[in-house]
């Protein structure tokens, strides 16, 4: 029987919901399970309601499921909100000394978390570890794996903290084994193979991809969901040759990255919609000065401050059109954490090859959800710096022209300080040498030269992933982080005798119009599924291919799609599919 096991940990901000959740996720991943974990939290430091969901399968998993086997309730509100999500036979771990339960039912398993932490290690803070231990006790998971994860998590705090955590976890584990006996809770056993997949979220993957891809400079101002990118690079960059500058505002961030890009290092910014709005003028600057730069735009619900800690896909058109005037750009929208790693590398290659900005469009759901992925093969990472001149080539040049007009539109690139070449560029329209001009002929040549780069750039963009199913009538169309939920919905529908095709875009601009048109032209019914209120991808497809979607399933409540929601809304909202 296939494993599909779900645990949700809930509590107030500040109660350690995320740390318990991560220990669960890591311990399952260490046991060679596939894991998908997502988190839901409020824009506050203490209080409110937060939860962390961990889904465990024995095959690839890229979406959450709200059907819970175990609910770990660190407060009463968690029971009130999530009890209804329990599967038949699902159970609740709660601290009976802290929380009064509404009913005396076998599904409530009282584990006095605080008391056990006090009694065993005299440290209330370890109540969370007791909870993690209890969850594994209920399913009889190999305790040694949990002990190993606790050891690696707390190693930096010293041996006593490690041992106390293990002791506290064992207390929870033991009591849960006793109290859960006879409840028919499924047992879950780790495998021995130890493939050791990576467990990471979209932002982690982007950071690793950026660093593998030679990013050397990042500037940013903290903003959910991209702050963790800045923090990771700031920390690891010290040892790995990447400078992260925490700047005064996002205007500075983008201008700084453009300055670094002009000087010859691979440079990146990471922000969300509000911050990106401030960066937009300098995005156009990168377009005009033909400066490579990569911008990570992690979407969250807008407009303005919106729902800061939640998810949305409503900045597709913003990413496509941001910036005054006309200039080439690429927009990549990775669908999974694994894709995010490769998208970061590709973004830097495209930015340097075409000397223009590249936007990586993600969202809170992708940025902060954890998945298990196969270890990235770094030996396969290709670095393409485009037409960057060597020192020898530069030394032979007399009058270097930064914006030389060429057939491809790409001008060979020298760097300031490289030999005697003077690298001159201007946000004003300029001549080939980079000096400002007013005449119409030069203006026309430079506009055409810049836009000619789109011809090459267009060829670099991967077409959508099309999965056809025999007998399918409808095609479900998605982009970015909805990939997991749509794919799983399609899988379930096929099992249920209602096959559908799926078409998913992970690279959006220049738009792969031809391949999208071919795929959709054959489909009887095209249904776009996206996380916004105005069907932006449906609009883009229509603009670029002339094909009008037959229906759209839209979501803008700040929460991610689950496969089950997609299926039920197809039934409710779409006629005869």
């Amino acid at each position, binding site marked *: 029987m296939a494993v599909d096991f779900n645990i949700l940990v809930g509590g107030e901000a500040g109660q350690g919901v995320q740390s318990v959740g991560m220990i669960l996720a890591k311990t399952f991943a260490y046991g060679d399970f596939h894991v998908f974990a997502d988190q839901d939290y409020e824009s506050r430091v203490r209080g409110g309601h937060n939860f962390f969901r961990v889904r465990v399968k024995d095959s690839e998993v890229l979406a959450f499921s709200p059907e819970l086997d175990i609910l770990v309730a660190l407060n009463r509100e968690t029971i009130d909100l999530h009890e209804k999500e329990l599967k038949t036979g699902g159970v609740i771990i709660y601290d009976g000394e802290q929380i009064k339960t509404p009913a005396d039912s076998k599904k409530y398993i009282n584990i006095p978390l605080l008391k056990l932490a006090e009694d065993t290690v005299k440290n209330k803070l370890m109540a969370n570890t007791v909870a993690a231990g209890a969850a594994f006790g209920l399913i009889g998971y190999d305790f040694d794996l949990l002990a190993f994860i606790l050891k690696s998590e707390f190693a930096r705090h010293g041996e006593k903290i490690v041992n106390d955590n293990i002791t506290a976890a064992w207390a929870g584990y033991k009591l849960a084994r006793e109290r859960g006996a006879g409840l028919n809770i499924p047992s879950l056993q780790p495998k021995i193979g130890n493939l050791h997949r990576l467990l990471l979220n979209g932002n982690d993957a982007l950071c690793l991809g950026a660093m593998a891809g030679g990013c050397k*400079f990042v500037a940013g101002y903290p903003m959910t969901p991209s702050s963790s990118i800045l923090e990771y690079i700031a920390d690891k960059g010290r040892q790995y040759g990447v400078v992260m500058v925490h700047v005064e505002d996002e205007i500075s961030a983008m201008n*700084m990255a453009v*300055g670094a890009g002009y000087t010859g290092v691979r440079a990146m910014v990471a922000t969300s919609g509000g911050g990106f709005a401030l960066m937009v003028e300098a995005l156009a600057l990168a377009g005009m000065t033909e400066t490579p730069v990569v911008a990570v735009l992690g979407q969250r619900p807008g407009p303005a401050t919106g729902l800061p800690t939640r998810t949305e896909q409503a900045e597709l058109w913003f990413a496509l059109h941001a910036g005054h005037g006309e200039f080439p750009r690429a927009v990549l929208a990775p669908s999974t954490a694994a894709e995010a790693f490769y998208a970061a590398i590709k973004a830097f290659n495209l930015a340097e090859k075409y000397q223009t900005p590249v936007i990586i469009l993600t969202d809170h759901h992708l940025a902060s959800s954890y998945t298990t992925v196969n270890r990235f093969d770094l030996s396969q990472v290709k670095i393409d710096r485009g037409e960057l001149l060597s020192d020898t080539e530069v030394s032979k040049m007399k009058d270097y022209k930064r914006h030389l007009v060429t057939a491809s539109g790409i001008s060979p690139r020298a760097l*300031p*300080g490289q030999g005697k070449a*003077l690298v001159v560029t*201007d946000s*004003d329209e300029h001549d080939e040498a980079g000096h400002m001009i007013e005449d119409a002929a030069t203006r026309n040549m430079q506009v055409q030269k810049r836009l000619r780069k789109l011809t090459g750039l267009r060829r670099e963009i991967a077409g959508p992933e099309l999965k056809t199913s025999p007998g399918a009538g409808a095609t479900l169309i998605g982009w970015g982080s909805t990939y997991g939920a749509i794919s799983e919905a399609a899988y379930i529908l096929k099992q249920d005798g209602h096959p559908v095709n799926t078409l998913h875009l992970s690279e959006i601009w220049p738009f792969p119009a031809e391949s999208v048109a071919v795929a959709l032209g054959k489909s009887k019914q095209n249904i776009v599924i996206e996380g916004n209120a105005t069907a932006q991808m449906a609009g883009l497809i229509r603009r670029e291919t002339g094909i009008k979607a037959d229906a759209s399933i839209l979501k803008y409540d700040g929460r991610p799609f689950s496969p089950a929601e997609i299926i039920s809304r197809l039934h409710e909202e779409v006629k005869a599919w």
Partner: protein
Amino acid sequence: MVTLNDYASTVPIAWCPGCGNFGILQAVKKALVALNLEPQRVLFVSGIGQAPKLPHYTRGNLFNGLHGRTLPAATGAKIANHDLTVIGIDGDGGAYGEGVGHLLAASRRNIDMTYLVHNNQVYGLTKGQASPTSDTGFITKTTPNGAGLPLNPLMLALASDISFLARGFAGDIEHLSGLIQAGIQHRGFALIDILQPCVSFNHTNTFAWYKERVYKVESEGYNHADKAAALIKAQEWGERIPIGIIYRQERPVFEEQLPQLKAMPLVKQPIDPMRIGALLDEF
């Protein structure tokens, strides 16, 4: 040996005849020649306005970016290649209006660069509107009731604990050139506010007006290491206007504190994807 010829440009100049910018251009060239800096080692970063056109009229690497955003672009460039001598050039609109937040941040950070601000107390390129440093009551098309209070850029710089602060005068090229040299040689962020007559739109603060008033602080035994004295000197305006180094201190330089830059400039460090293998083990 670097000569003035190395800094001669053939790009036609778009400034008004008699503009204070000509004197500043001369002073910049003389400073670079005096320091024996070759044009390829210099990176000019400038914004938008009449002043920021200056680098086009000499030679060097040039990133002529957005209005008010000179300092972030210059900071990114300096961190990317700290071997370059980075000189920022703006007018009072870009430096003290649109980009004033960046001025405070760059000064606090103490990035090693020199920032020349051509301060003519008026917007030239957009044709005569009030600037952040215009006198109170200055009537222009955008301030028909007269401009408000002028910003004192020297006080602002001192409040951000700047490490090098000077004021020069476009009408005294030798003296200004000396200040620019000192600013470039200073390790850290150097702001040089340059009093610049505007022959088209500012008929009060003319060459003659300044010549009657400016005096060199160094000729009066002024101690530019004394911050309390600098705060007083920065407020002196009217009958007597001080020029020279107003304040100077040694502070840790931003990029010198980055371990990533110890071995060599960032731009010279090779790209090696395999290097992050150990990081993968942490997941």
